[in-house]
């Protein structure tokens, strides 16, 4: 029987959870943040090899100048995000992994002097020229995963991509950056989509937006009807249900196809790009601008939640101050959303390409109890896993068996831990399990 029919009859409940949306800044227009006095740019803002530094202390740099080149195929260059002088080359803590990575600190000269940009007409570029410009602009997946975009756009010859899905789901609570981008700049997002469709000669695209963003849906629909695309483009409204924006969940919801375990979207002929990534692709090709800034939500326990267009390397504290400061009860700083975001040790941590949100909140630490086998984690797991078994196996240090329960299929969305009545931090156990499994060399 059709899955939808089963769901309506209550015979099958869709996986996932419904945390409160808390989209505090949804009605607040994007504001350009003032230029920071200094920026700290870690040389790894993407998945893959770190970028290799090209500047030394004392060098004068302009906005958009490459300060570190890609360290391999799966890598991306880093550009200066303000003009000024390279002050030092320190080792900084990654805001994603917490590990030490090389970084570049630039002190602003206040001029905001850009390199000479080379705009292009996308219609006159070949697919390979488009991909190489995207690579040169340092574009990575801006939904948070930060996978270098040019790699996604270079599928191996045996894989055919026939559908592009634009990810505007923004299913994480609090974050409003993509929502505002779709409302205020639908033309940039869709121009980016047209460029991607051309680069891959794809004839079909879906713009996926959760049903709690009616303004974004309306704006994107209006814009789609006004533009010409190299194929069919449809705005596809998806139900609000976390983790709708997870790539595999989104593809399954829209296309009814499941990406095989360990596989990539291209295995089912799909390619998913976040709306911010597409806007950046538009800027890179049409305006010739490398990736130096992004839309970021600053929200939670701040006086006025806002959405900023901010340069990478800006410390979180500067943006929080622009929101009128944080509440005195706040004791947690998250980069990303509350479900998958990463807690930061300091308000001085700088934002990077993947930072879509700065969330200031009060911590909610709860005492962990023994599992009562209620089965909620099983029911809500979007990947059809048995999350509680990972906890049992990790507790018993029985890492070998994790593979039998398909641990690597876990996307760490946190639905299991969200609903756990025993307050078990399941994702933390799963992360430990994955790490130990990797140490054992099991793939």
């Amino acid at each position, binding site marked *: 029987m059709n899955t939808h029919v089963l769901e309506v009859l209550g015979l099958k409940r869709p996986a996932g959870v419904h945390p409160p949306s808390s989209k505090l800044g949804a009605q607040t227009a994007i504001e350009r943040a003032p230029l920071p006095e200094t920026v700290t740019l870690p040389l790894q803002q993407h998945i893959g090899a770190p970028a290799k530094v090209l500047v030394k202390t004392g060098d004068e740099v302009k906005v958009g100048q490459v300060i570190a080149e890609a360290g391999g195929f799966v890598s991306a260059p880093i550009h200066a995000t303000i003009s000024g002088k390279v002050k030092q080359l320190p080792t900084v803590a990654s805001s994603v992994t917490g590990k030490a990575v090389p970084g570049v600190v630039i002190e602003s000269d206040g001029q905001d002097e850009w390199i000479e940009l080379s705009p292009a007409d996308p219609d006159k570029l070949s697919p390979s020229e488009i991909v190489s410009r995207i690579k040169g602009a340092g574009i990575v997946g801006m939904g948070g995963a930060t996978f270098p975009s040019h790699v996604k756009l270079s599928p191996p010859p045996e894989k055919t991509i026939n559908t592009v899905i634009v990810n505007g789901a923004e299913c994480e609570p609090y974050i409003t950056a993509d929502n505002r981008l779709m409302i205020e700049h639908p033309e940039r997002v869709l121009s980016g989509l047209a460029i991607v469709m051309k680069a891959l000669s794809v004839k079909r695209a879906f713009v996926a937006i959760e049903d709690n963003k009616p303004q974004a849906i309306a704006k994107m629909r209006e814009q789609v009807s006004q533009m010409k695309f190299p194929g069919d483009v449809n705005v596809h409204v998806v139900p609000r249900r976390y983790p709708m924006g997870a790539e595999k969940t989104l593809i399954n919801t829209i296309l009814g196809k499941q990406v*095989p375990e360990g596989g990539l979207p291209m295995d089912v002929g799909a390619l998913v790009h976040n709306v911010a990534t597409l806007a950046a692709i538009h800027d890179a090709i049409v305006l010739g601008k490398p990736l130096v800034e992004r839309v970021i939500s600053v929200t939670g326990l701040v006086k006025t939640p806002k959405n900023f267009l901010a340069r990478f390397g800006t410390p979180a*504290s500067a943006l929080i101050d622009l929101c009128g400061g944080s509440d005195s009860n706040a004791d947690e700083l998250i980069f990303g959303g509350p479900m998958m975001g990463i807690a930061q040790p300091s*308000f001085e941590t700088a934002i990077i390409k993947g930072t879509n949100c700065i969330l200031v909140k009060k911590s909610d630490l709860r005492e962990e109890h023994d599992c009562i086998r209620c089965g909620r984690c099983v029911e809500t797991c979007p990947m*059809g896993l048995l999350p509680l078994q990972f906890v049992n196996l990790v507790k018993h240090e029985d890492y070998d068996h994790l593979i039998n329960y398909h641990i690597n299929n876990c996307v760490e969305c946190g639905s299991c831990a969200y609903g756990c009545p025993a307050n078990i931090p399941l994702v933390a156990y799963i992360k430990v399990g994955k790490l130990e499994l990797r140490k054992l060399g099991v793939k």
Partner: protein
Amino acid sequence: MDNKPLVLSPSPHLRGRNSIKRDMYLVILALLFPTAGAVYFFGLYVLLMLAVSILSAVLIEYGAKMMRRRPFRMDGSAIVTAILFVLVMPPRSPLWIVVVGSLISIAVAKEMFGGLGHNIFNPALAARAFVTVSFAGALSHWIAPVHSMLADGVTTATPLSESFTYTLSKGELYKALFLGNVSGSAGETSALLILIGGLILIAFRLIKWQVPVFYIGTVALLSWVLGKDPLFQILAGGLFLGAFFMAADYVTTPLTTRGKVIFAVGAGVLVTIIRIYGSMPEGVCYSILLMNAFTPLIDRHVHPRVFGMVKRTKKEVA
């Protein structure tokens, strides 16, 4: 920005409102309906049994936790067990047996196995089985509904026992069974009140509707096939109470919905076989305890369908 240290915890940083306590108190809320029925039909003595049961269960849990050097938490699970135990007992059980029941359910069936979440058998039913075989004589006193708070009650046969006879019409008998106006364990007689409690459990997503439906459905179908009156078989005895409050217990039944259905069907078959071919009139307690023993086996073999696995298997076959 002040310099107070920031909390560094793993994601997710947002937690839902579920808690063990909330679950347990919701179960207690649902149990209030059959419990009220028990007091209504069998008098204030049932209330006394409840008080003794709850008090002894909580004290025994406290003692057991101290002996095991584990923190004692008033999470409500001991209260649930204590109420359930009274509901499955004859309504005039001696109070000292109620205390023995708490000792078995809490100290033996639960804490000795490692506490809530680790017990293999349903604590209330394990205690019921223990006291039934240990004190058979003292527990053979079944009374007819008294409809009065203080009356002693007249000894009578329960509907499922061989000596049960009735003078009512068939329709009136079904009505009496449905409303609970028959002899039986304290809280098992009223299908209606159990149903109300059960619907609360389903509405709060504490149990899956599949469990009672497949459990009761299997008994009805198999009884009919074996030439018994299916409606009488499902309404008489403790089937409804077992189906909503024990066969759907978190800890002692399988994790997946498919596993729960296997459990429910298995228990349904066992009830019918015990009732029709066994030497005991009722089989609900043993059917669930026996299936509890199969739960680890079911969980080992029945897994949810892993996302992305369907395609691959098809490809491999092709």
